[in-house]
């Protein structure tokens, strides 16, 4: 059961990485980051079956940080949209020389 859970977790993480690398919509990028965090949480829970409930505590911490990250990140997206009128990451090239 643990082996299958770990494989599912690896596949979900890689799907998130593919999303981050191939998309340009900032909101989709944030959602892919959430998917990666979820994959890591699945690893924590599966490992908690071997090593005791500390993994569950870690998952709760990760969820809290994910909520904070989503709130601040989406506020930045709103701010960027006000400034540039788009959330396309390749359009934000002010800092590129």
């Amino acid at each position, binding site marked *: 059961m643990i082996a299958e859970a770990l494989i599912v977790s690896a596949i*979900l993480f890689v799907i998130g990485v593919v*999303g981050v690398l191939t998309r340009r919509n900032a909101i*989709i990028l944030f*959602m892919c980051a959430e*998917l990666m965090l979820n994959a890591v949480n699945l690893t924590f829970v599966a490992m908690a079956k071997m090593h005791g409930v500390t993994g569950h505590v870690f*998952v709760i911490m990760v*969820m809290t940080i*994910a909520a904070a990250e989503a709130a601040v990140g989406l506020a930045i997206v709103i*701010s960027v949209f006000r400034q540039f009128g788009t*959330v396309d990451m390749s359009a934000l090239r002010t800092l590129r020389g």
Partner: protein
Amino acid sequence: MNRFYEFQFYLFSLIAIASALLFVTRKSPVPAALWLVNVMFALSGLYVMLDAPFVGVIQVLVYAGAIMVVFVFVVMLLNLGRSEISDLRGLGARLGAGLVSLALLANLLVVQRDRLPRAGLAPAAENVVTQVAASLFTDYLVAFELTSLVLLVAIVGAVLLARKRVTV
């Protein structure tokens, strides 16, 4: 592990992976968000089957109920729901992403294979929630209290960043 349990486990795994693939291939953010909610629900089922019922409930409440609502709210606020133009990067970036992801997947699978238990597992503890609470409020009390500070900072930061500026 009886047959029915195994069937349920594979079913939830399959739903999670299929929903994640559908999520990452949608063009518009709203269907993507809804498929991601589906992933969260399937993962919650997996958590319950892995003897983590509390984490499963929190997954539904916090991820599906709160975080994804914020995403959908921002999509609505910025009126991005109807973007049908593809936001895919160019061919070179996609090929690079494919190579990187294949290497990463192989790497993760090899690393995880070494972490698997050699012997059989101990039976599940009787009361996982009690153990989680005891661990959270004794060993990790400082981290737990610091989390509240992180949330406070995040609230203030989000309000400051998203506020309409009167003067720049």
